[in-house]
């Protein structure tokens, strides 16, 4: 980078290109992967972290004094529809939930709207990366959530700043989203506005049929893989099966939405049989599957903690304690909001878990380095370590604390605006004559 460019950036820091270079000093560094560094320094070169430590040479870079501030890696929300859904009740602004059982070829990344009002809102709270998913959660065995989709498409890991979806990309096809079939005898009937019961035998048969459909689709995909490899005569490319190849090769994990113990159990079995990598997402009841998850090294995207109990007789804190249970069982997990605009509350999901038994440091990991590892991007993001993208938040305190202010946010080394629709409306009405 030449001197002229640096001078330009000093004058108009907000217009800086993404590949910024600067030295952050006088901050308490919380790398998450290692011990905190009081009065530490972070050297950012071309958007990446070049050096971290108590003393780092500036090498001529611009110096930013962060006196009294804390530097944390940007947080990662492992399940959202950010960028895909704008106003849930306006159909035209919602680009999720395609029809059909099998849509592995759908890529959330290309549908992301970088101009979404939700991006600045969510990142203002220190969230720099989200997994955005083609299917709105709620199925997978949640009560009344019998969904019509099995394989919903490919979720994308995106940064919350950029001009185009290409800018946003951290990892396209970070996970294949699978809505595991649900088995519920109770369902809500619109006509009578009441919960109705279906005999167990009937739902079970339907459930098994769905599982069979799913298995058959995987087998077909596998035949396609063989045919392609063998150069079979008359081989025809098919986008659906093509999209399944990374899954079958174990390169892309399958994110399985499953709410209850039975679905998790069956999903684990399914993964064993199909020899695929899975991540269990959104579960509320693990029951006896925790040991299995641990033994097989299956990671988990924890369900939101700020929820009511699932069953009538559950303890009031049953949603709050799930992350602590996962931790105690030795299961690797990440936090997620399963939401769009309320993705900004991600740190408070973690805070509640800490209040209900999860060690603080584990909560921080589950917001940063754990999701980076689960989605295969731990060389890129998730901690303040040399070589990673400079996704940093500068705070005046503990980010899990609701009163803490985010003073500055960097995505790929570029300082991003913290103003957003909320702050604009705040200004507008505060200044109302």
């Amino acid at each position, binding site marked *: 980078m030449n001197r002229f460019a640096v001078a330009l950036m000093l004058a108009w820091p907000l217009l800086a290109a993404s590949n910024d270079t600067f030295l952050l000093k006088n901050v308490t560094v919380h790398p998450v992967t290692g011990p905190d560094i009081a009065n530490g320094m972070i050297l950012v070169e071309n958007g990446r972290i070049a050096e971290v430590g108590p003393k780092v040479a500036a090498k001529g870079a611009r110096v930013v004094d962060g006196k009294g501030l804390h530097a944390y890696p940007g947080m990662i929300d492992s399940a959202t529809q950010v960028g895909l859904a704008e106003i849930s009740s306006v159909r035209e602004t919602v680009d999720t939930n395609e029809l059909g059982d099998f849509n592995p070829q759908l890529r959330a990344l290309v549908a992301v709207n970088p101009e979404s009002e939700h991006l600045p809102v969510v990142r203002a709270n220190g969230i720099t990366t989200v997994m955005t998913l083609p299917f709105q959660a709620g199925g997978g065995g949640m009560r009344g959530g019998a969904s019509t989709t099995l394989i919903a498409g490919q979720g994308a890991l995106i940064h919350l700043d950029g001009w185009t979806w290409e800018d946003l990309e951290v990892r396209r096809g970070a996970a294949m989203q699978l809505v595991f079939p649900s088995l519920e005898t109770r369902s809500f009937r619109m006509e009578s*506005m009441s919960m109705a019961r279906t005999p167990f035998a009937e739902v079970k048969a339907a459930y098994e049929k769905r599982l069979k459909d799913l298995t058959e689709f995987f087998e077909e995909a596998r035949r396609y893989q063989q045919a392609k490899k063998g150069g079979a005569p008359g081989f025809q490319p098919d986008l659906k099966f093509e999209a399944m190849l990374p899954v079958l090769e174990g390169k892309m994990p399958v994110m399985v939405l499953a709410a209850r113990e039975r679905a998790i159990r069956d999903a684990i079995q399914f993964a064993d049989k199909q020899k695929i990598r899975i991540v269990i997402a959104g579960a509320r009841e693990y029951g006896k599957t925790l040991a299995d998850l641990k033994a097989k090294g299956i990671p988990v995207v924890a369900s939101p903690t700020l929820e009511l109990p699932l069953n009538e007789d559950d303890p009031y804190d049953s949603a709050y304690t799930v992350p602590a249970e996962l931790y105690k069982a030795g299961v690797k997990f990440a936090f997620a909001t399963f939401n769009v605009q309320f993705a900004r509350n991600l740190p408070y999901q973690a805070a509640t878990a800490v209040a209900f038994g999860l060690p603080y440091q584990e909560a921080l990991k589950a917001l940063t380095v754990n999701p980076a590892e689960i989605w295969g991007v731990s060389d890129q993001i998730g901690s303040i370590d040399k070589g990673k993208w400079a996704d940093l938040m500068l705070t005046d305190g503990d980010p899990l604390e609701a009163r803490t202010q985010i003073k500055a946010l960097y995505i790929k080394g570029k300082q991003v605006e913290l103003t957003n629709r909320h702050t604009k409306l705040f200004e507008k009405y505060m200044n109302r004559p």
Partner: protein
Amino acid sequence: MSKLIRFALLYAGIAAAAPPSGVAIRNARIVTVAGPTIEKGVVIVRGGLIEQVGADLSIPADVWTIDGQGLTVYPGLIDALSTIGLPDAAPAAAPAGRAGAGRPTAIAPATGAPGAAATPPARGPEDRPSTTSWQNAADLAQPTDRRIETFRNGGFTSVGAFPMRGIFAGQGALLNLAGDKAGQMVIASPLGQYITLASSGFSGGFPGSLMGAIAYIRQVYIDADQYKAAKALYAKNPRGLTRPDYDRALEGVLESPRALLPASRAVEIARMIRFGEELKQPFILYGLNEGYRSADLLKQAGAPVLVSLKWPEKTRDGDPEEVETLRALETRASAPGTPAALARAGVMFAFYTDGVATPRDVMKAVRKAIDAGLTQDDAVRAMTLSAAKIYGLEDRLGSVEKGKIANLVVTKGDLFQDKTEVKYVFVDGQKFEPAEETPAPPSRQRETQ
């Protein structure tokens, strides 16, 4: 010949057609319900009525005599709330205390003239949605209903039959479970207005919610009040007055001497007591699953209640992995204690079968209540005299007393014992002998499995 004499002759002719003019049961144990039980006595039945009851009675020469040695005579059993004897009756819907409690209740079209196009969804109370308050079970009665014989063979001689579809479903009638013509079955009519809280869901128009249903019922009673006053004023001096529109929905409500309101859970019971008092109408609550929690409140309110004998049960075909709620478990364990609790508190209550399919299952349900603390006497009373009293018919039904309608059940063994045999049933003095029960053939499926 004067009309009167012809009338008398006509009836004499009928009487003469039935040779010996009565039946006497002697040496039987007689549970009169109204008074003390007679350990060895005689009941004489003649002309459809109980002519005499007593320990030492001389038996007239012109009656059949039945030796009642080892038998017990009870008043005929009354199912206080039923659809038996009514055509196309859906199985009695569980009182839809709230949307979603029972099965979805089909809504009878409110103003569906035959051949008329489908009525548009109701928009408010003025459209009188889900209302057939003018329907009367006495007009609907059908002697061909097969359940009549099934229940009569089990000792039931009468039912409080009600239309049960809709919010204002219609008026009930007390029907005897015998007779070739519908008219012979009717003892009294109308008994009251059967009210449910059926809401139509999202698609069916007003009311689509519980609050809408309650507001609707309230409005109808206010309208009925107004209507009654307007009609009276007009009848007094029609000249110079605009005549009030005829409203059959309100006519039906005004004809009904009492309202039957659904209340199963404790909150519903409390709510319906307040609501019933507001209606300024005598009212009866039906359902009462959680009556065991509300006995004192009911006593204080003084409203009689009809207790469903369909005790909550574990859902068949349920999900084996589903954990039942504490509330469901508690209600299931405690509901059969409701009758005992009501009896202790001194609440007037009667039983109704609520769609329990066979008399055998009904008796099993009563035994559950007895096991939960109800005395045998109170159980009999709840199925006989109390039911009659609740409908104001204790002058003709409900006990073995001189002058009452000869509805009797004669059993070998105590009424509620498993092995009790119903030997004879008398309905309006007509004797029925239930066929010997043959044990059900073993299920084939089970043999082959």
